[in-house]
C-alpha cells in the first residue's frame, strides 16, 4: 500500500501519457488535456502546503521574539496583504480580486515588479565579477572561453564593432555567422541531444520504478 501502489500509479499514469502520444485525438478525445488538468488541480491544492510551510517557518521567530523577528513579521504581513484581498470577490470592493486597481495589482506593480527588475539588474555586477575571476588563461580550454567571451563582448558595442569593421568590413558578420550561428548552434545541439536522451532515460527509470527515492525506497 505504501510503496507498491504508488509505483503502480506512477507506471500507469506514465503509460497513459505515452498512449495519448500515440493515439489519435480524433478518436480518444483530448485525454492529454484532461490528465494535464488533473496535475494542475493537484498543484493548486498543494499550494496550501506551501503557505502553511512559509507561515510556520516564520511564525516561530515572531512568537519567540528571536533576533530579526521583525523581518519574519514583515513577511507574514506581506503574505496577508497580497493574498487575502486577492481571493475576496471584486463585487465587495474594487480593491479586491486581481484586476487593475486592486490591492493585488498595486503591490505587484509598485513593489514586486521593481524588486524583480532590481534582482535581475544585479546580474550586471555578477557578470563582471565572475568574468574577472573565472576568465584566466589557466589552460587551453579556459583560454578559448576567455577569448571568445571577450571578442563577442566587444562586437556587441558600437566601439568594438567599429574596431572590427576597421580590421575587416565583414568581421562582425563572420562572428555572427560562424561563432553564434556555427559553434554555438552545434554545441547547443549536442547538449540538447544528450540531455534529451538523459531526460528520456530518467523518465523510463521513474516509470519502471527503478528510480523511486520519493516513495520510500532508495
Amino acid at each position, binding site marked *: 500500500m505504501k510503496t507498491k501502489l504508488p509505483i503502480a500509479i506512477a507506471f500507469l499514469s506514465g503509460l497513459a501519457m505515452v498512449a495519448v502520444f500515440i493515439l489519435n485525438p480524433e478518436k480518444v478525445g483530448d485525454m492529454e488535456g484532461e490528465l494535464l488538468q488533473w496535475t494542475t488541480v493537484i498543484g493548486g491544492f498543494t499550494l496550501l502546503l506551501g503557505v502553511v510551510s512559509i507561515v510556520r517557518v516564520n511564525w516561530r521567530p515572531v512568537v519567540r521574539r528571536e533576533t530579526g523577528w521583525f523581518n519574519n513579521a514583515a513577511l507574514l504581513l506581506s503574505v496577508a496583504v497580497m493574498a487575502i484581498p486577492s481571493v475576496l470577490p471584486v463585487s465587495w470592493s474594487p480593491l479586491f480580486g486581481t484586476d487593475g486597481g486592486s490591492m493585488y495589482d498595486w503591490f505587484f506593480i509598485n513593489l514586486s515588479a521593481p524588486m524583480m527588475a532590481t534582482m535581475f539588474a544585479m546580474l550586471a555586477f555578477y557578470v563582471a565579477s565572475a568574468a574577472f575571476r573565472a576568465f*584566466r588563461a589557466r589552460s587551453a580550454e579556459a583560454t578559448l572561453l576567455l577569448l571568445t567571451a571577450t571578442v563577442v563582448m566587444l562586437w556587441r558595442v558600437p566601439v568594438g564593432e567599429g574596431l572590427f569593421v576597421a580590421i575587416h568590413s565583414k568581421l562582425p558578420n563572420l562572428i555572427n555567422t560562424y561563432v553564434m*550561428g556555427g559553434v554555438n548552434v552545434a554545441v547547443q545541439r549536442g547538449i540538447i541531444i544528450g540531455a534529451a536522451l538523459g531526460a528520456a532515460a530518467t523518465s523510463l527509470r521513474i516509470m519502471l520504478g527503478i528510480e523511486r527515492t520519493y516513495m520510500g525506497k532508495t
Partner: protein
Amino acid sequence: MGFWQRVSQLDRRWIYLAVALAVIFPLLVPMKMKLGITPEARQLYEAIETLPDSSVVMLTFDYYPSTVAETRPMSIAALHQMFRKNLKVITMTTIPLGGPSMADRTMKLMGDLYHKTYGVDYVNLGYKANYTAVLLGMGSSIESIYPSDQYGTPLANLPLMQTVKNYDQISFIFIVADNGIVDNWISIVNAQFSTPMGAGVTAVMAPKFYSYVQAKQMTGLLGGMKGAAEYEMLVNKPAMALIGMDSQSLAHLLIIGFVIAGNVAYFATRKKKESKG
C-alpha cells in the same frame, strides 16, 4: 603582497563600484558615441514609413516589467513614428501581470503627446489568457476574442474598431517582446494570415530571430537596447535607449579591461612563483 597579487585578489566590491560608475557616469555626462544603424532596423523603419496615411497597425506589449530597459524605448520610438505618420494603432498584450498597465501607461503618455483621441486614433485591447487561441482567433474576428477593450468598453462603441474586423485590415504588426511569443506570431499569424510583421526583442533573444528576417517571415528586427537606440535615431527622437548606449559601451569596455587586468596579474604572479621555485 605585490601589486599584481593585489590585483589578482581584488575584492569583488571594487568591481561592483566600477560597474556602477561606468553605468551612472554617462547618464550624468552624455558622451554621445557614434552608433551605426543595422540593415534590419532600417528595414523595419522603412516598412512602417512607407505605409499609406491612416493605415491600421498593431503594436504589442509582450514584455514583463523586468525587461523594460530594453523593450519600452522600442515601444515609445515606434509610437513616435506611428502617431507622427497619422497611423491608427491597436495595441494588446499576452503578458497577464504588468503587461496591461505597461500598455496603458505608454499609450496614454504618447497619445496625449500627439493629441490623439482614444477609440478613434488608437485602441488598447488589453490582455486575454491563452495566447494561442488569441492569436489564432483574431484572424477571424477580433471581437470574438476581445468583446470589449482594456477599459471594458464594447468594441462596437469604438469608432476605430468599426473598420477593423481581423488581420485583413491590419497593415503591419510591430511586436515588442521579451519571450518566445515571437515564434507564435510568426508561426500562427504570419504563416496563416500573411500579415507583414517586424519585431523588437531583447539582446539575448536577437540572434535566434535573424533567421526569420533572412527567411522574409519578418520585415526587420531590433535587438536589445542597441536596437532600441537605433530606432530612436531613425525616428529622430533620442531618448532613454540612446542615453543608455554610452553606459553600455563603457561597461563592456570596463569588463574587458578587468578580464585583461586579471590575466596580466595571473601571469605576473605565476612567473614570480615559478622563479621562487
